[in-house]
């Protein structure tokens, strides 16, 4: 373990890492953008490829589940599309976050840089992908207009919260999985499972307001899944639905706890990452 002069020094070290990492914006913003360009280099469709694949998935599943649940397409499709776009961001941050330091082993061992640089690059890359997918959302708004109003602007702070959470998750899981390699597949399995536990293809409110009281009661259990709250705070404004504040409370609570734990972990283990990868 690194011997530090005092515990103050260790906290300062964690803070400096985050601040210095942020300051290297030019580097990680450029790299994040390069990562996106990499995906469609030498492809025929180019950047449109990313948006088209999202659109095709959403349309296909929208039609399928509208039929299965007996919902009108104009309700089901926008719900699924927005859910997918947000899920792509959240799951991207978690899955790539768990891998982030392992993947950047070469850079970590050859260039002295705050470890947060790799995390900022990841979150930026996911943000750019989200922006690409928003094109589909914009097209959807033309075909299936939603009752957007001023409260829809809450989508912006909601996304900011999502990004802030993406960062601590990547940092925490990234550090942990660089030490314990089986954490990566474990995270993969849990994320896969969570997709089904989250109302993305199934509409939460429909089950909450079900005529059958048993179903309505059981639907509440879905709220144990934290991702439900993360998706709700941004999907509701994007679909022009009214704000449900307890979702925001849960997300802010998790954000604070998450960052507290991550800062504590950074304080102790930040300098171990180059030894572990």
């Amino acid at each position, binding site marked *: *373990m*690194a*011997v530090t*002069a005092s515990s103050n020094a260790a906290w300062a070290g964690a803070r400096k890492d985050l601040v210095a990492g942020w300051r290297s914006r*030019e*580097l990680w913003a*450029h*790299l994040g953008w*390069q990562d996106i360009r*990499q995906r469609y*280099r030498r492809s025929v469709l180019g950047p449109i490829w990313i948006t088209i694949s999202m659109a095709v998935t959403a349309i296909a599943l929208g039609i399928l589940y509208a039929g299965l649940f007996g919902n009108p397409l104009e309700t089901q499709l926008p719900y699924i599309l927005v859910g997918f776009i947000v899920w792509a961001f959240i799951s991207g941050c978690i899955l790539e976050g768990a891998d982030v330091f392992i993947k950047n082993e*070469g*850079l*970590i*061992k*050859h*260039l*002295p840089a705050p470890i947060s640089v790799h995390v900022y690059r990841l979150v930026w890359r996911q943000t750019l992908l989200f922006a690409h997918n928003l094109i589909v959302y914009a097209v959807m708004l033309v075909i299936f207009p939603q009752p957007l109003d001023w409260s829809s602007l809450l989508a912006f702070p909601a996304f900011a919260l999502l990004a802030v959470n993406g960062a601590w998750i990547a940092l925490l899981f990234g550090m942990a999985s660089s*030490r*314990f*390699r*089986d*954490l990566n597949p*474990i995270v993969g399995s849990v994320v896969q499972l969570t997709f089904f536990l989250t109302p993305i293809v199934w509409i939460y409110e429909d089950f909450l307001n079900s005529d059958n009281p048993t179903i309505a009661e059981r639907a509440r259990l879905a709220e144990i899944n934290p991702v439900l709250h993360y998706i709700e705070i941004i999907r509701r404004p994007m679909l022009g639905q009214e704000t449900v504040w307890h979702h925001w409370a849960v997300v802010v609570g998790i954000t604070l706890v998450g960052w507290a734990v991550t800062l504590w972990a950074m304080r102790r283990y930040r*300098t171990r990452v*180059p*030894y*572990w990868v």
Partner: protein
Amino acid sequence: MVRIETRQASVDFPIFDAKTRSLKKAVLGMVGGNISSDDRKVPVIQALHDIDISIEEGDRVALVGHNGAGKSTLLRLLSGIYAPTSGTAHIEGRVAPVFDLGVGMDPEISGYENIMIRGLFLGMTRKQMESRVDEIADFTELGDFLAMPLRTYSTGMRVRLALGVVTSIDPEILLFDEGIGAVDAAFLEKARDRLEELVKRAGLLVFASHSDEFLRRLCTSAIWMEHGRVKQRGDLREVLTAYKGRDPWLDDAAGRA
């Protein structure tokens, strides 16, 4: 103020295998009795012991020692890549490490773009790199290839590109690990001058190498590493003589005579 100071710094590398890397095994070991007989302690390689060195602005330090002595590890300690596992290392100034010329290079993007990225990795800003691009392009003599993706380059061309970028920066602390690699003789001559210019611009230099010639041209003092410890520190000629067993300067005189 540019300086590096280490006190009693040690670097120990943990050697993980599949068992010690497993979270499941770590957790299971904590509950219940000892079912498995394997030793859960992680073996450790002590790469550096009790390094006490102080390098000030203006120092040009050569780093010599046999392979495996700990030169590369020491450079990484001095650059801040590895925090010491015990003791302290205090680094003031922007570090430009030149350990692997190819790191951060992306084969899919053009030479020009790689110049930008390599520069950003070395701590330069976008604007600084943009103002240097032409000068680097001239030096590398790569011409039209600079617009082509890096994967079309030969090894020698890549080295030229990397050298071009690395020698254009303004380092406060320059740490050089040997093995510049496959370049043709004529280009190396050109690079040598540029390297000297670079070293002049640097605040302080630590250069690990087996090449006496390079060391004598660029350095004034030396550190001799052996088995992870500093065996000797002092004036370049003294340390090189002790390390080699004979005075390299005298060889020159004998050669010319």
